């Protein structure tokens, strides 16, 4: 049971988004631009960042929803996504993406954990 009364049978963020469409609009626009808009990072790479942070935050819905999207875009299997969550440093991801995942992990702890070096 959710803490508030949400439309029934909508999983995860879809419940609160249906409950409050005024805030859902900018939230969806932001996700659309960040994850699917034009970028030098692929959609798969960006979904993987979302998946990894959600995993660190222990958010079951977000890590699985975005993990499945990352798996689809990267054309890998779910075992690979699970390996990234466990320890991305031992995966064949590019060095650039590994460095970006390290920044994302710092942001997850707190903005001040992001270091210049």
């Amino acid at each position, binding site marked *: 049971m959710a803490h508030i009364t949400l439309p029934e049978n909508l999983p995860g963020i879809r419940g609160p988004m249906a409950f409050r469409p005024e805030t859902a609009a*900018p939230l969806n626009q932001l996700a659309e631009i960040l994850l699917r808009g034009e970028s030098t990072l692929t959609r798969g790479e960006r979904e993987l960042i979302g998946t990894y942070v959600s995993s660190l935050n222990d958010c079951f819905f977000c890590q699985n929803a975005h993990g499945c999207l990352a798996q689809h875009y990267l054309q890998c299997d779910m075992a690979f996504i699970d390996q990234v969550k466990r320890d991305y440093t031992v995966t064949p991801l590019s060095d650039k993406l590994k460095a970006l995942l390290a920044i994302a992990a*710092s942001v997850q702890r*707190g*903005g001040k954990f992001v270091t210049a070096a």
Partner: protein
Amino acid sequence: MAHIAVPAGVPGIRSLALFRPETAKPLYELAQVLLREPSSLSPAERELIAVHVSTRNGCVFCASSHAAAARELFGEVRAVVDEVIAGGAPAELSPKMKALLVIAGQVQQSGRAVTPEAVAAARAEGADDREIHDTVLIAATFCMFNRYVDGLDTLTPTDPQTYAEMGRRLSTVGYAPPKSA
């Protein structure tokens, strides 16, 4: 020096908004809806949630700018802002607002740290679903803003007067992305 090449001399999130206007648009729109558009919580009360979370996240830019906005909006009882920053629960705040600040503090730790007991306590003081929803989303949104601003090491002014001016702008104009430095 910020971690990336943002416009020089522009503080905090405004420098990031100029660097990436595409993402600034929904971010500022989200802030405007959450903190200014019609709600049974006053803009002052909603700014106080932002201040509480930003303080706990140690984000000096966000905590100082929203504290300045909250002081403007609270007017004569502006001292409540500094009491909340200091960790107090001022008598001038409604019991409902104090209960909502507890929920916001839990969100700051983690979404999963929000307890049914804290939600029940807010309900017992008269909070409805919409107020609980907005409290959680304001707190979660500021956890994002705080990480965004500090994660890129943006310029954090130290002069209180700079924040007082920001507070006056935020309390009168609200949230609109900057058009130029």
